[in-house]
């Protein structure tokens, strides 16, 4: 990461730091890391202390959770980057479904969202069903899923899609509907229509809002990944988490929770990096880069 990057990566200051020598660069990185991590460190420390004081088995101290995580997933051979077989099974399975479901939901959600955002008429017909559909709790549809999908990946991907598509859809509809009228007019008068208008005007203009939806749904996808492993599943982080919860292996349950948090953080970091590229115009015109 370059130095200028560290300075402007996350904060909103408009003034880049002046370039310095290698020593200052290292210090810059350290300061940057500290400014980013201090709160997490403080909170973890507080958590450790608090849980040690209250001694409640449902709230094991972080140190114990780390031990449980190590035993479960990170005590494998060096040749596998210390991952255990369980880790490969659990992570592999869960992440595969997660991405499959999320990508599918995003594609479908953005496509339908754009269609509904563009056509008031179409939206009038379909929107009630959307608001109906997104309020249905997945557990009430188990029998439908059993009948309609193969156990394992198909059923789990279907569960994930049916849960995470809504924020993408609603944000996309909103984004498309609120494209600056004058931008649409400009496109219109220069004959930029149809697919061109979509690609060059509507999608970029709605992009900040669509991206917000994608990001919400990425977090939601992790949650639905867990839900999808509640029934009819044999491996996966969610399966493990719920199993541990039911058999009172609470540090293991917390290991599942923490690994989800870590995964969520990492996924989000990747997401934000991509977003910064894609929405450069937007962020810099708003003084955010």
């Amino acid at each position, binding site marked *: 990461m370059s130095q200028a990057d560290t300075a402007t990566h996350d904060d909103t200051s408009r003034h880049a730091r002046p370039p310095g020598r290698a020593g200052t660069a290292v210090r810059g990185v350290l300061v940057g890391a500290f400014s980013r991590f201090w709160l997490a460190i403080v909170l973890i420390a507080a958590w450790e202390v608090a849980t040690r004081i209250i001694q409640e088995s449902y709230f094991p101290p972080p140190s114990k959770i780390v031990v449980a995580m190590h035993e479960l997933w990170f005590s494998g051979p060096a040749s596998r980057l210390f991952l255990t077989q369980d880790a490969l099974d659990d992570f592999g399975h869960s992440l595969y479904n997660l991405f499959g479901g999320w990508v599918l939901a995003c594609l479908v959600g953005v496509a339908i969202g754009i269609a509904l955002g563009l056509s008031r008429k179409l939206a009038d017909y379909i929107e009630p069903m959307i608001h109906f559909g997104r309020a249905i709790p997945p557990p009430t549809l188990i029998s439908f899923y059993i009948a309609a999908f193969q156990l394992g990946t198909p059923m789990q991907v279907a569960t994930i899609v049916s849960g995470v598509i809504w924020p993408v859809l609603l944000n996309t509809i909103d984004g498309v509907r609120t494209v600056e009228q004058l931008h649409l007019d400009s496109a219109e008068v220069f004959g930029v229509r149809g697919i061109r208008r979509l690609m060059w005007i509507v999608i970029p203009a709605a992009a900040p809002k669509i991206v917000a939806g994608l990001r919400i749904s990425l977090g939601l996808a992790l949650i639905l990944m867990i839900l999808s492993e509640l029934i009819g599943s*044999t491996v996966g982080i969610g399966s493990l988490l719920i199993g541990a919860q*039911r058999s009172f292996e609470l540090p293991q349950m917390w290991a599942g929770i923490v690994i989800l948090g870590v995964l969520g953080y990492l996924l989000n970091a990747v997401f934000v990096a991509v977003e910064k590229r894609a929405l450069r115009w937007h962020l810099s015109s708003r003084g955010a880069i």
Partner: protein
Amino acid sequence: EESTKATAAGGSTLEKTKINIGTIPVVDTAPLQIAMEKGLFKAEGLDVALTTLAGGAEAIPKLKSGALDISFGNYVSFFSADAKGVIDLKIVSDGFQSAKGTHTIMVAKDSPIQTVADLKGKTIAVNTKRNISTMLIRAAAKANNFDLDEDKNFVEFPFPEMEGVLKAGKADAIQPVEPFGTFIGQSIGARVIWDTSQGPTADFPIAGYAATSEFAKANPNTVAAFQRAMGKAMALAADRANVVAIIPKYTTIKADAAASLAIGGFPTTLNATRLQRVADTMHEYGLLDETLNVQDLIAAPSSK
């Protein structure tokens, strides 16, 4: 009013008259419902409120937080929670034990699976993994000289979904409990290939009522009153007609359907030796790391 009286039939003072009891709307809790209906709790000076549980596991935090005073639940959950130090429990009343037809392994009508031995390498749908269901099935497999893997051979489905699971072929076999076993047999002709209530797991203790040690210690008279009422209710439940009569009142099972169900046993006494079987079997199948002395978990009814 009787319920506001702080003196029970036994003559001792009740520490707490209003108690919350967690229950599940299944056949197993018939005695509890009988006790409610016949006013057995009231007669002991107890004012009981029932709360529905979705399954056994969340009884533990509810007992811990005090949302429930006493809860119905299966022994496997109770014992493993206690053994793992999650909660300090006392069993205050036995609840239910298996009998012929209550816990079976079933397959679809046209399934090639004929015996337990055919289940080798197959997928079996159970309500909860690492619990009583898998334990009973694994015991059955062991009796047939093979092993079933806790992770690989079982998938979880709620009981109400098992009919669909079998119909849609999403699992090779299911382990339903009553009333589902009987209903699934009737509606899609599913076959019973094994009744788990035989051999080492015959008349197996399934579920009971527990409170935290803290509660049991602080409210001995209340617990005793509960035990007396449950004792009477259990005795009444020994008469199948009483159970069949109460079932339609707290479940959606129709009266005629209730008459056709297999109904398990309702032990009137709380016997550590019998319950020790559960703990030992759990240990055998890896659900307990060490042996557990069940005697320590029993809140013995005060000898009256």
